[in-house]
């Protein structure tokens, strides 16, 4: 499309009387004429998007918008508890149960450790062969080469 047409195209499509220069070019340039004609056809089709009747919002529209805003507002953790006490009670109960289970597990482990692991001497005494002198003497006395 040539510049002379491009400059005045929007006015022409809006129905403003076109300049002599614009009309003269359109008459002499088949390429511009075809393009402008197609654009004019599409332009007129837009009329179908104009509302044919007024639709007024029902009363209380703002209240419904405010309600939707509240529904879509990102909720903080505190507001979740505040808005849903049943959910808050369930979370509290689950937390207590978890604490109880965890506590009893820790206490049982503590009891196991309180007897303490055997000290090294005790372990050696268990593992070493009998060192009782009487037993050793009896063993030697009964020794027959």
């Amino acid at each position, binding site marked *: 499309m040539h510049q002379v047409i491009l400059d005045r195209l929007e006015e022409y499509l809006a129905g403003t009387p076109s300049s002599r220069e614009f009309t003269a070019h359109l008459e002499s340039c088949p390429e511009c004429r075809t393009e402008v004609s197609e654009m004019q056809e599409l332009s007129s089709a837009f009329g*179908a*998007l104009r509302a044919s009747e*007024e639709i007024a919002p029902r009363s209380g529209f703002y209240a419904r918008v405010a309600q939707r805003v509240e529904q879509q507002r990102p909720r903080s953790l505190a507001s979740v508890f505040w808005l849903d006490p049943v959910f808050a009670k369930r979370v509290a109960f689950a937390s207590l149960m978890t604490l109880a289970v965890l506590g009893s597990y820790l206490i049982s482990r503590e009891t196991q450790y309180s007897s303490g692991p055997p000290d090294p001497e005790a372990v050696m005494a268990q593992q070493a062969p009998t060192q009782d002198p009487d037993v050793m003497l009896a063993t030697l006395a009964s020794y027959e080469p």
Partner: protein
Amino acid sequence: MDYEHSQEGALVRRAQSGDEAAFREIVERYQSKVFSIIHGIIRQRNDVEDIAQQVFSKVYFSIRNFDFRSSLITWIYKITVNECFDYLRKKKVRKLVYESDLSEDEVRRVENTEPAVDRQVPVDQNLAQRDYVVKLLMRVSEEERTLLMLKEVEGRSVEELAEMTGMNENTIKVKLFRARQKLMKAAQRLDRTPVAG
């Protein structure tokens, strides 16, 4: 006086700082306009209020991002048009899912008969034309769509568009010209697509 320091600019700044009364004033000032834009595009009376609520909810959550480069109504207009086209796109997807057991040819036909009226059997000539334009507008960018709608549906002049958007008049002319060229190409493709007889 620039827009930011106008009376409406002050109203927007109040809304940006969390003033609920200012937001309410914005809703009440533009609700009729928003309803009218939605009804023009959607034509489904029952869904108009739902979309309008969503538009103002978006306005509420995004008002802090409004930078005064365009007027408030231009910004709301853009949100409204986008919301309508999102609605139509979702509706089209739902329709395709519902008809997923159709043959490929049938699905192709459904894709080209958006959003609910078959071009061959127009219930109403105006509705068929509305569907045709909506289908074409889905092939251009959001910005081009808003400019075309403001120019063609709202009847705004290039000067007004420049003022509303903060762009200069030549930029508006070039953008509109490119958008119209895209529409023409989309129309040519659409007219070549076989439709059910």
